[in-house]
């Protein structure tokens, strides 16, 4: 649901950029972590609705869903979403759709452990970022 808030943040930050640079925007490349379980179609729909009220009316949104490579800071093990799937399922079960990772993916270390050594201390790349703008 908060895909709308995120789309709004993308529109307003790209709009601000385009006004500062005095450039029209054709395409926005947004990168999101797969961990966030954000719905790409909803993001795009929201973006397309919100942009109509902005100065980047012609911009198109392209979303790249990044797959995680987690790196354990304790034992060095590198693992992916697949390796912790069994740890993530209970979160979906307990919290439902609006679960903490959906809203704040950085919270992953509170819920998952390194499958090899059991440490919560692993590196995450959880940010939502605009990686490029085509003008």
């Amino acid at each position, binding site marked *: *649901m*908060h895909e*709308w*808030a*995120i789309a*709004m*943040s*993308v529109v*307003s*930050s*790209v709009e*601000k*950029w385009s006004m500062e640079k005095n450039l029209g925007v054709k395409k926005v490349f*947004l990168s999101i972590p797969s961990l966030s379980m954000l719905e790409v179609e909803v993001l795009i729909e*929201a973006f397309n609705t919100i942009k109509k009220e902005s100065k980047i009316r012609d911009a198109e949104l392209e979303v790249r869903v990044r797959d995680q490579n987690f790196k354990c*800071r304790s034992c060095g093990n590198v693992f992916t979403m697949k390796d912790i799937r069994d740890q993530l399922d209970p979160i979906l079960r307990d*919290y439902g759709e*609006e679960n*903490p990772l959906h*809203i*704040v993916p*950085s*919270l992953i*270390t*509170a*819920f998952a452990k390194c499958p090899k050594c059991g440490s*919560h*201390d*692993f*590196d*995450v790349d*959880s*940010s*939502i*970022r*605009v990686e490029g703008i085509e003008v």
Partner: protein
Amino acid sequence: MNPILELARERLKGKRVLAVMSAKGGVGKSTIASLIALNFGERQKTALIDLDIYGNSVLKLFGIQKLHEVSKEGIEPFRVGNLSIFSVGGLVGDHYIVLPGKEEGNVLESLLGLANLREETVVIDTPPGMGEELLTLKRVANPEVILVTLPSKLSVMVVEQMLEYLLESKLKVEWIVANMCYLNTPFGPIYPFGKPEFVEKLGVEKGIKVEYLPVDPELEDFSGRIWDYSGLLKEEIRKILDE
């Protein structure tokens, strides 16, 4: 480009943001932040944001055990009278939180960016120390700081270092609050930490107003329902706000 950070800035822009801080733990930050917000709340809609990821005392003081609802606009606050309360604790419930340091900023930015903040006055509770909260707050807004200390020499020394940083970073330090200075008794006030001379001196040196708050033993009864509290500490805080 970090759109969530931009959104946090957008949401806080032009608002009065008061951050209750201390380098020292357990000095009354959460209590004071809550009572400031409750005092404001008697006159206008006010937001209370809990940036203490690990402690989330605000939720405990208000007895909130629910989870935040999420709408198109973002994270919806818990409403208590005129107050809108936001906390990471409201996203995870009673699950513990453990985070590598560099993720803390992302979590705080997300809370501030996604909070559906409509209020013009925003009171922020922070954890002890000078960690990521301080940096995040500086990234997203230009808060007025209320610096809390105990009147004890140790506490004042620790807080003084924080004050140096705050002033150097051009943050506005509204007041230094010396909490738990005195206890009123039928025989006159008792000063559990001695007369608050260290904090008084610090205030004079730095040209910052020092406010002295009492110990109120009754406060404890209102843990979990602080909105119901109208005792001495709240009254004294109201007087400070009215000045």
